[in-house]
């Protein structure tokens, strides 16, 4: 689509046309005066006034002249502090290539590159006539041939408007850049060869019309839409309810904690058994353990793996103590081992705190194999050959395998019973996976309540892996019910039961609060803000 070519001055008002004409005449006169002045100044600058030079400058000049007459200009330039480098002073004519000059001498070979560059720069500066910033430049620019100019400095040819993608035909035909033209306005007034600004600004014409339609496929549009939705949802400001919820939430936390503490503490202080006891038929896995222990012969070696973490010792104690008590009543020979560094100490603490009066414990008729380092590999090694497993120092010093109760033990299957006492499900799984292949019968497990869901998957499998399970306070209380021997598990039971009741109440009331009271309030706020 072509646009009719016309003179833009036709559209200008008379006063603006008059002003343009005056500016052009004034600029031409100024350019002529400046050209004459700079020519005079350049001739004066080429004759160094020796009499005006200070002594130190004359000394420098003399020294440089002694080095060679060609270095006059360099000597002079050395005295100029940080003279600015101007693009318009750079010589644009390229000297003819001389092979001899191009070949580097020995001296130049030894010189670093940065020194050569500095010399080149000096040469450029000295070759220019900085005393006359305009006059010779103009002359040199006139002398330049068109093919020596860079493309962006060359005046546009007649075909340029067609080849220029931004040329819409509304501009006047005068070239965009004329090296000889002198700037006549603004801070660059008087300079030649500057890029013209005013004509661009003053030109009136229709702006080009570009298409804003993106060429994208439907799939790209859909992806962009998804991305836009994602970003929009991220940048959406949400109302901060923290300030409104903080205080009630903290108050609720205190209330819940107080209720739980009261529920736990009151039965302990009261000392009376009030909560209903667990029924025997509710935990068949506990009954299986009871039957397994109750049929043990007196003096049977029982391996007790005591893998209990310190933090859960209090809970595991409630479950393990009734079972250990049962084993001691059956006069079983207890052999303790642990893959936890704290395990042997905790096992010793359990025996001394709860069974110090039992003859087998009082007479130290039990064995601690100590800490079994090495994790899974050590468990496998111990299950394959217990006697060659690397046991810890107490076991080494006391030589446990030489004791009478362990004389018959050659493999892990020789133990009458293997009892795992664990606080973490993963510890139990390690023993179940690595030791059961060496066992012809299953293991018995005492665990914390949090490990119980994982361990229930191993109950009643074929082949047998876990034959009996007592988990948590409820498991301990149930086991004591089976034995008809109430000790501290029953004291714990009341406290545990009341805490459970409070927890259920809190969950129910919390759900009610969230659904009935809190959520509608938030919804109303959202409506108001909308």
């Amino acid at each position: 689509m072509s646009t009719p070519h016309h003179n833009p001055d036709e559209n200008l008002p008379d006063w603006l046309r008059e002003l343009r004409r005056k500016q052009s005449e004034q600029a031409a006169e100024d350019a002529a005066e400046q050209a004459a002045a700079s020519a005079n100044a350049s001739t004066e600058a080429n004759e160094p006034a020796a009499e005006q030079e200070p002594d130190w400058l004359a000394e420098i000049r003399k020294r440089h002249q002694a080095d060679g007459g060609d270095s006059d200009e360099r000597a002079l330039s050395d005295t100029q502090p940080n003279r600015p480098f101007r693009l318009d002073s750079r010589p644009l004519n390229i000297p003819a290539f001389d092979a001899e000059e191009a070949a580097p001498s020995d001296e130049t070979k030894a010189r670093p590159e940065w020194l050569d560059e500095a010399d080149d720069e000096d040469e450029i500066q000295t070759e220019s006539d900085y005393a006359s910033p305009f006059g010779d430049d103009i002359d040199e620019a006139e002398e330049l041939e068109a093919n020596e100019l860079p493309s962006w400095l060359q005046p546009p040819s007649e075909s340029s408007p067609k080849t220029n993608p931004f040329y819409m035909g509304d501009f006047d035909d005068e070239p965009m850049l004329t090296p000889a033209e002198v700037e006549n306005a603004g801070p660059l007034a008087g300079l030649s060869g500057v890029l013209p600004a005013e004509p661009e600004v003053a030109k009136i014409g229709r702006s080009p019309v570009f298409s804003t339609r993106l060429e994208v496929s439907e799939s790209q549009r859909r992806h962009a839409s998804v991305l836009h939705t994602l970003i929009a949802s991220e940048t959406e400001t949400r109302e901060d309810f923290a300030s409104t919820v903080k205080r009630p939430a903290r108050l609720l936390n205190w209330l819940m904690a107080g209720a739980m503490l009261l529920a736990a503490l009151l039965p302990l202080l009261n000392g009376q058994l009030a909560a209903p006891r667990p029924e025997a038929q509710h935990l068949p896995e506990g009954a299986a353990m009871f039957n397994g222990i109750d049929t043990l012969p007196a003096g049977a070696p029982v391996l007790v793996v005591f893998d209990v973490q310190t933090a859960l010792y209090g809970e595991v104690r409630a479950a393990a103590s009734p079972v250990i008590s049962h084993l001691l009543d059956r006069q079983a020979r207890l052999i303790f081992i642990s893959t936890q560094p704290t395990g042997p100490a905790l096992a010793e603490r359990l025996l001394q705190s709860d069974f110090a009066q039992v003859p087998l414990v009082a007479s130290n008729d039990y064995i601690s194999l100590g800490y079994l380092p090495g994790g899974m590999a050590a468990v496998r090694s111990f299950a394959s050959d217990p006697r060659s497993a690397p046991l810890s120092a107490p076991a080494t010093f006391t030589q446990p395998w030489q004791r009478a109760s362990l004389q018959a033990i050659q493999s892990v299957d020789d133990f009458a019973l293997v009892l795992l006492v664990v606080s973490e499900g993963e510890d139990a799984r390690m023993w179940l996976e690595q030791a059961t292949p060496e066992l012809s019968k299953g293991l018995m497990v005492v665990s914390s309540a949090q490990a119980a869901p994982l361990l229930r998957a191993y109950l009643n499998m074929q082949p047998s892996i876990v034959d009996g399970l007592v988990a948590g306070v409820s498991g301990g209380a149930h086991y004591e019910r089976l034995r008809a021997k109430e000790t501290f598990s029953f004291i714990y039971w009341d406290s545990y039961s009341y805490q459970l009741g409070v927890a259920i109440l809190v969950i129910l009331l919390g759900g009610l609060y969230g659904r009935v009271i809190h959520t509608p309030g938030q919804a109303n706020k959202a409506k108001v803000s909308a």
Partner: protein
Amino acid sequence: MISPELLTQIGLLLAAAFTLVTLSYIFGDHPIFRLVLHIFIGAAAGYAGAIAVQDVILPQLVFPAVELAMNGVSAIDTVEFSIRLGLSLLLLTKLSPRTARFGNPATAMLVGVGAALAIGGALQGTLLPQIAASAQTFDLAGFNLALQGGYYGESISIILQGMIALLAMISTLAYFHFGAEGRGKQAPLRNILVDVLAWAGSIFIAITLATLFSGVLFSGMGALTERLDFLRSLITSMGGGG
């Protein structure tokens, strides 16, 4: 010299104080709670380190070396002791980045043995037995017995239990099936049957997670009861109430 009884009393008092400070977290985080937390972590790490030195490094490595150097013989076989010493030294090279590559063989052995044991144990001890147990979802023998004995309610219960177990297994597996058929320019969509089963599976997964969470809650309640009983016993004993 402090007597053991006094040390025990000091230990009990410290334990009671630490318990109370830990419980004070109900009122929010504070510097004393953090101090106690750091003491717990430091004590646990220090104890584990001491056990490792006293029960493992000294009797398994240092004492045999000393014995070998002093007497020329050791309770441990020389070849086995050399292997222990060599692997230990190789592991020690991991302390410096420059020599760390020399420890790679020992580390590779540890990782390789651990991985082999874990995979073998999981297959043999967990996956295969549980797959076998899943294949016996319906207790057909029990069902026949109940049917022959006229216990129709029991027989229906066995069937229902089996069906629920089967549904739980299939729907949970369907929940983790993320395959979907492409529909040209429209978003891929799962098969409607898989979608329905996955919805049911999400319910069973939620029940499983709730069970695990309840186990953690039960453990916490048991631990809290034990700590409160400890405080009650201590106060009673200090008050002379026995």
